[in-house]
């Protein structure tokens, strides 16, 4: 049985969004904390792969965020500022 593996990008493309490009709802408050964070759980536990390690740092892109809130809970340094997106913005589930 060989089925095609869907990359996370392909999977996220199935979704509907209204991206808030002007004001991201998540921010890394202190990037230096990420630099010294040994294990970087956000890069592992975000279902939408919003957090990617680049060198010692973590790069966050919130466009494909599914708003689960996991990153804020697993961050051992409290370095993530997390808000609900502004009115109507963000993920729009239609089939779940």
């Amino acid at each position, binding site marked *: 049985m060989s089925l095609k593996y869907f990359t996370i990008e392909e*999977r996220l493309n199935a979704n509907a969004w209204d991206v808030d490009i002007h004001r991201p709802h998540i921010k890394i408050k202190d990037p230096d904390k990420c630099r010294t964070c040994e294990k970087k759980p956000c890069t592992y536990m975000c279902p939408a792969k919003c957090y990617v390690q680049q060198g010692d740092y973590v790069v966050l892109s919130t466009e494909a965020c599914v708003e689960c809130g996991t990153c804020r809970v697993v961050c051992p340094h409290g370095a993530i500022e997390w808000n609900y997106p502004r009115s109507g913005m963000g*993920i729009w*589930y239609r089939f*779940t």
Partner: protein
Amino acid sequence: MKFDVAVVGAGPAGLAAAYRLASSGFKVVVLERGREPGAKELYGGRIYAYWLDKYLPEFRKDAPVDRWVRKERVSFLTEDKALTVELAITQKEKTSFVVPLVSFVSWLSKLVQGAGVKIVTEVTVDALVKDEKGKITGVQSGSDVLQAEYVIDAEGVNRLLLERAGIVKKLEPELVAVGVKEVLKFENKKVLEERLGLDEDEGLAWALAGYPTEYLPGGGFIYTYKDSLALGVVVYLKNWEKLKTPVYDLVEKLRLHPYIAPLVKGATLQEYGGHMTPVAGINMSPPRYYYDGLLIVGDAAGFLLHTGVLIRGVDFAIASGVLAAEAIKEARSPSAEDLAIYEKKLRESFVLQQLEKFRSADRLLSDESLFRDLALLSTEAAYRYFNIDHNQRTLFEAVREASKKTRVNMLKIMINMIRMLRSL
């Protein structure tokens, strides 16, 4: 404009509360941050009907139901084996059903609007508003403040507003799991039914332990919608360090597992999502469920019962919403003293009685070796029992050999099975 009651969140809990209040003449507004009710909501896939008959009997009339569950399947899954138990109910029972939460919530929101509730979408509430005495007097969104005699917090598992109001601490990883879910659509419902072994319109609820979470606490699930299915994996946040696969790829690994892949072959991905779910039950509850001017319902209050295979959120959410409404109807004022009746109602109802009863389930379910041991030992033992070579084994021999091979301690697993019998 002043409302009697402002409800934050158009989920099952908030809408149920709004419905009951409006039906008794209260002026109610529901504030929802999504484009439409349900836009931000995600669950596994099943709703239990028993308590809905008491708390929301209207659902029997015209709520959307994709399939009534008549097959309960549980599997222990490893890399190359699966051991599956199935309960098939041949009567046309209607005790639990599968439906997209979005569809159910959409139906509920129309019922609620019909009762006179104003649902305002695309409004993100930023904070609960307090007066100088600490009474919650309304909610704030951006620079707008909406006053209300009572506020019902139905904001869901993240409960940022409760945190900002100083009512709860930041969520700890021990209290929650993350669920990742794919909705896979088939060419038509016949294909789905044939693949899953279902009669027409029959529903399947399937829990899978072991492989889906790399043998860590949590599990996989499959629920059958009308012509699509929900496939997902739930992982406890506290175990993240032991995961070898990032959480976004776990669900794909499950889809491509040789036991699952033939079932979903050809199905297209309709949606991909993630959501947190309370796993600690009542241990996640805020210090109280009522404050001056405020009641807390649904996931925000930790009202989700989780015993591994059985997961109940929506019926608990709806009941808590209805009980909050009843409490407000009976309270003489919005003081915490008068609203204490909400907690009394919760304690007299199944909501807190059942959550109390299964209070210790989480301790067992978050035991890191429980599912690993069960999945490895049971599949290996079954394999040795069914695989005939020069020596046909007795059941005991099969288990003993499996225990040796998998290095799962038999005494430990027996103790854990007794714990399971008692607490799950």
